């Protein structure tokens, strides 16, 4: 009897494994069909420029991957409809990495075999970081819309900047710099204080960038307080901040903590303006309107904020069955703009499409870009991270409203 059960169990396992295989089959066959589809639409006249699109288009994070892909394809289609670049159509070569670093490298090698000129991807930081060293070795122009890890463009262990790699999303600490600049330019702050969760990389990263930028701008940081995860009582730290009298308090934590900090600060009679990063989103549900009034935080994207974004939303909905685009689609669109502008520049130099000089010219074009996307204008710093505008969200009457691009 026991034997029978174990045999049955083994059978179930084998069947399960087979079923798993069956599921992956259509996925892998589906990807080539996607690029033959693109082949079919591309007219042969004048040749084509092949651009790889890599991302997680199936699996757990597919919604992000597909949004980036939709955004990027929307711009590529627009350029193709207007006659392409230098008479050449853009041919997207699409591969799915399922968010997996190993799959990403495999797909990347197949793309090289397919002869891509540039790569837009990947979507997740892990998959992107697996591909970057390979693309760097091949000096292939590469841009991601969504991989935020610092390691995507910069290898800290070897102190090596991946010069071929760019992105349109900003990395987390950039928000700290933005808010320091905002405090100086818009709020006219002379003194600042910070309160952060000390074990949280996100919060500490923003705070360090903020403090460094303050030093550069001449804002005096009078207090730098910390707390540990799970703390609910911040009054002692806030009393210290109050005693030092800061104009602004930078509080780049997650919204639940931020709400408690603001509430307790107001109880202690602190009137300074609170500032935060995109971890603040939803904070209005956790603290009183009058306590939050006037606080500001920055974010990468705000729906319906500018005329460009409104136009993008309308076009996107028309193209993709009324779907509402989010940050990922917008950044995918911007990534395509930055990349295709650089390709335009390379084409205008009369280089042979796909040659090494051509690729170097595309990389050069992105490095010195002056492209204007829908979320911002772009330029790149020494680590190839974008210098771009952030969205400033202000707390007004208990609502989180778009204030300005900054």
């Amino acid at each position, binding site marked *: 009897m026991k034997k029978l059960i174990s045999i049955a169990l083994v059978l179930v396992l084998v069947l399960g494994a087979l079923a798993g295989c069956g599921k992956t089959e259509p996925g892998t066959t589906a990807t080539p069909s996607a690029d033959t589809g693109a082949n079919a639409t591309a007219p042969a006249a004048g040749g084509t420029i092949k651009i790889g699109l890599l991302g997680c288009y199936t699996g757990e994070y597919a919604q992000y991957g597909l949004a980036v892909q939709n955004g990027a394809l929307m711009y590529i289609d627009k350029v193709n409809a207007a006659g392409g670049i230098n008479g050449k159509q853009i041919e997207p070569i699409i591969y799915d990495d399922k968010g997996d670093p190993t799959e990403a490298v495999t797909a990347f090698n197949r793309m090289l075999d397919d002869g891509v000129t540039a790569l837009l991807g990947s979507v997740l930081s892990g998959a992107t970081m697996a591909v970057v060293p390979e693309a760097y070795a091949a000096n292939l122009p590469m841009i991601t819309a969504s991989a935020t890890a610092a390691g995507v463009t910069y290898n800290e262990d070897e102190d090596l900047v991946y010069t071929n790699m760019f992105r349109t999303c900003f990395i987390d600490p950039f928000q700290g710099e933005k808010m320091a600049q905002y405090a100086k330019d818009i709020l006219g702050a002379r003194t600042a204080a910070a309160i952060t969760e000390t074990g949280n990389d996100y919060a500490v990263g923003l705070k360090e960038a903020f403090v460094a930028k303050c030093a550069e701008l001449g804002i005096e940081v009078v207090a730098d307080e910390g707390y540990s995860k799970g703390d609910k009582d911040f009054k*002692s730290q806030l009393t210290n901040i109050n005693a030092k009298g800061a104009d602004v308090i930078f509080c780049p934590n997650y919204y639940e903590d931020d709400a408690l900090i603001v509430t307790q600060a107001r109880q202690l009679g602190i009137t300074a303006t609170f500032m935060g990063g995109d971890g603040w989103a939803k904070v209005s549900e956790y603290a009183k309107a009058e306590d939050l009034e006037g606080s500001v935080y920055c974010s990468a994207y705000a729906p319906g904020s500018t005329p460009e974004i409104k136009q993008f939303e309308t076009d996107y909905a028309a193209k993709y069955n009324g779907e509402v685009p989010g940050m990922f689609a917008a950044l995918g669109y911007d990534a395509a703009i930055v990349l295709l502008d650089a390709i335009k520049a390379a084409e205008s130099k009369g280089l042979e499409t796909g040659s090494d000089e051509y690729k170097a010219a595309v990389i050069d074009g992105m490095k010195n870009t002056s492209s204007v996307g829908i979320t911002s204008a772009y330029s790149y710093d020494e680590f190839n991270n974008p210098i771009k505008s952030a969205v400033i969200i202000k707390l007004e009457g208990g609502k989180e409203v778009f204030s300005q691009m900054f």
Partner: protein
Amino acid sequence: MSTVISQIFNGLQSGSVYALVALGYSMVYGIIMLLNFAHGDIIMVGAYVAWIMIAKAGLPPAVGVVAAVVGCTLLGITIEKVAYAPLRKSPRLSLLITAIGISFFLENLAQLVMGAGAKSMPEIVSGPGLSFAGANISFVAMVTIVVAVISMVLLTILVQRTKMGKAMRAVSEDMDSARLMGISVNRTISFTFALGSALAGIGAVLYSCAYPQASPTMGSMLGLKAFVAAVLGGIGSIPGAMIGGFAIGLLEAFVSAVGLSVWKEGAVFAILILVLLIKPTGIMGRVITEKV
């Protein structure tokens, strides 16, 4: 100077909540020698009851406050009847493990029913703050300290002056002799749990005023700190729990004030170790000779 006064009031405010919770620990330990680790989670349930009443049902805050206190009281009695009473003759370790089990049960139940994220508590009390020697004392801080002190005075009167209080003291002194004297031990134990849990309910409301969020795990750290407060004061002693609670609150405020806020919890648990090493009976505790 004003900063020092502010910090003292910060310490007194959190200390009063610790003291109220520590009282529950101490009373239950005094009567059945049980470290009721589910006590902190009763506060969490109290906070959720208040949230449901005020935020969900839109009832006035006063109703929420009463509901939280009543809810905690009923929960305390239920836990005692369901989980602890059947184990009264068992080894004390079984009771302790059951208490930890109840604690996990309540936390996970809350997570299942209410979700893992925090719920935002509407304002329960509001009023103008007070300026005292240049320091700002918030209205919430004053209410917390005053309510906690009044509760402690009433509790002391109840234990020292009433018949039920006398019964409580008798049962904690010697359960068998108390039974021989005609005291209903079961009823007295239930009453002790009810009283401790009602204080936890008041603690829950005061905590929600100061930190207006309810989350499934809010009670665990609060409970542990109150436990340290009870041990510091001398577990089993009512005045000891009050002194311990305020001492822990002031210690935390002091540690944060000198810039070591990240070590706040470390300092609290270092106190626990020090007390156990130097004076295991705590500040007000009396030496009990172990009966063999």
